[in-house]
């Protein structure tokens, strides 16, 4: 706290001229208010950290022992009931990773190209409309995205509830975050580089592909990883579109595929200890996955050639 004290020591009028401050003399009341404000701000931060530490702590304590067992990482829940101890989460981990990868594979091209459109090509009304719609997409609740894909995929097209439908809904949530972060990064690329490239007789599309995007590359990757971290923890669309299963599945278009969120959702209402342990274990695994993506994203961001 003492380091912040320095600044307003310099503020009182200098040179011994008895000019009263525009705020009046630094009376007791003002000093008290100032100190109170400082205490409140520190306290606010303290309060905000409590839930984070608490959640991480309880998840670690209640689910940590599940992750230590190697079975967790090698087995599925095939043949395991709520009463029985045992089985692993490999089916759910694998499902989460597969769906995340497919979601990213769909979202990254659309998201990056849209950002390129907005920054490098877009002018006038269409660009304003696209930008507005990206904002609206950012705000769409995940359950509405799930409901929309259900209305499209199941009700209208008559398909089954499969993993691919889940990835469509997740892509709707991921695309706007990629557009926004990529847009920010592309705007940070100095115009001088575009000019230099044009002046060499390089066509615009090659300038974008070979000069602009590579310059912003690590920033774009950071945005993708953070966006991925966000959709990995999404559960609402999965409840509508991707029912849980206890076995390993890899087919995106046929049958059910387990994920960590649906694994948590499956057993969360159970009263039996083995089932609850699995819920905590799956929660911890999911948090670790999301955190790792987050950290990786921030780490990559450090190598950015453009600075905000």
């Amino acid at each position, binding site marked *: 706290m003492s380091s912040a004290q320095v600044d307003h020591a310099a503020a009182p009028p200098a040179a011994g001229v008895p000019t009263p401050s525009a705020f009046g003399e630094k009376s007791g009341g003002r000093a008290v208010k100032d100190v109170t404000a400082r205490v409140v701000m520190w306290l606010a931060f303290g309060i905000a950290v409590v839930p984070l530490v608490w959640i991480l702590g309880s998840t670690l304590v209640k689910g940590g022992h599940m992750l230590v067992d190697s079975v967790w990482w090698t087995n599925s829940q095939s043949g395991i009931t709520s009463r029985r101890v045992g089985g692993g989460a490999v089916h759910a981990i694998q499902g989460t990773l597969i769906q995340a990868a497919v979601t990213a594979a769909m979202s990254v091209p659309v998201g990056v190209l849209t950002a390129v459109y907005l920054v490098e090509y877009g002018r006038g009304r269409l660009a304003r409309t696209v930008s507005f719609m990206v904002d609206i997409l950012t705000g769409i609740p995940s359950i509405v995205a799930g409901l929309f894909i259900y209305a499209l995929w199941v009700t209208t097209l008559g398909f089954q509830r499969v993993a691919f439908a889940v990835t469509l809904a997740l892509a709707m949530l991921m695309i706007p975050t990629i557009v926004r972060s990529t847009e920010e990064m592309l705007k940070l690329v100095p115009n001088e580089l575009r*000019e*230099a490239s*044009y*002046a060499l007789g390089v066509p615009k599309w090659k300038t974008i592909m070979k000069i602009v995007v*590579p310059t912003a590359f690590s920033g774009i990757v950071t945005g993708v990883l953070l966006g991925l971290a966000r959709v990995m923890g999404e559960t609402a669309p999965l409840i509508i579109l991707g029912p849980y299963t206890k076995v390993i599945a890899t087919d995106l278009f046929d049958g059910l595929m387990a994920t960590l969120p649906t694994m948590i959702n499956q057993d969360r209402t159970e009263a039996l200890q083995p089932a609850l342990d699995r819920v905590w274990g799956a929660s911890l695994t999911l948090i670790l996955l999301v955190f790792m993506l987050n950290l990786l994203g921030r780490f990559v961001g450090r190598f950015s050639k453009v600075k905000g």
Partner: protein
Amino acid sequence: MAKRIDVKDLDIYYGDFKAVEGVTMTVEPRSVTAFIGPSGCGKSTVLRTLNRMHEVIPGGRVEGSVMLDDQDLYASSMDPVAVRRTVGMVFQRPNPFPTMSIRDNVAAGLRLNGVKKKSVLDEVVEQSLRGANLWTEVKDRLDKPGAGLSGGQQQRLCIARAIAVNPQVLLMDEPCSALDPISTLAIEDLINDLKSEYTIVIVTHNMQQAARVSDQTAFFNLKATGEPGRLVEIGETQRIFSNPTEKATEDYISGRFG
């Protein structure tokens, strides 16, 4: 190799705003022409019309003609991208590509236009760096990032990058304004060497520099605030500096305004 530039009745616009009016001039091959004048008089704008870089700014357009020998740069069949390959440009602030090494920076123009053969690229890189008086300084660290060089070296790297695509004309937009006096001298020496092969047009704020490097000088000025800029007079550098025809030129050169 080097070509002559003929500008005739050139008007330059940003959207509806006419920035420069009625420019007519001739630039001889293998000579250095300097553009001087107060800030905002349109000399950089004119420079940028000589390789159609003016048009990358939204709303930028021109009327009139710019001929490179007998080719009309603004003919409808002319590809602006091809024009920029023929007329190279060096900018005010050194702008090497931050993701590329020194070697890749110099080779960028060729490589991005489809030249892949390593032996060709290596030869062009060495020639261009030699041409830009930078070879001895960087030959041992060609794979280091271009952004790691000093400001003056970066600017010579940008010149090397520009001449690597083998242009006919080299445009320089205040190439020394961001550099210290020693680096400035190095660039000026380089301009003297380069003029044996290229037609060079340079915009400068520094009148001594114009006097030192150029054969021909063009003085630009605004008619009045809010009016378009125009070419006041153009002529042999020695004459412009010793015995200008126009009163405005004399006032500017003697430091009475600008």
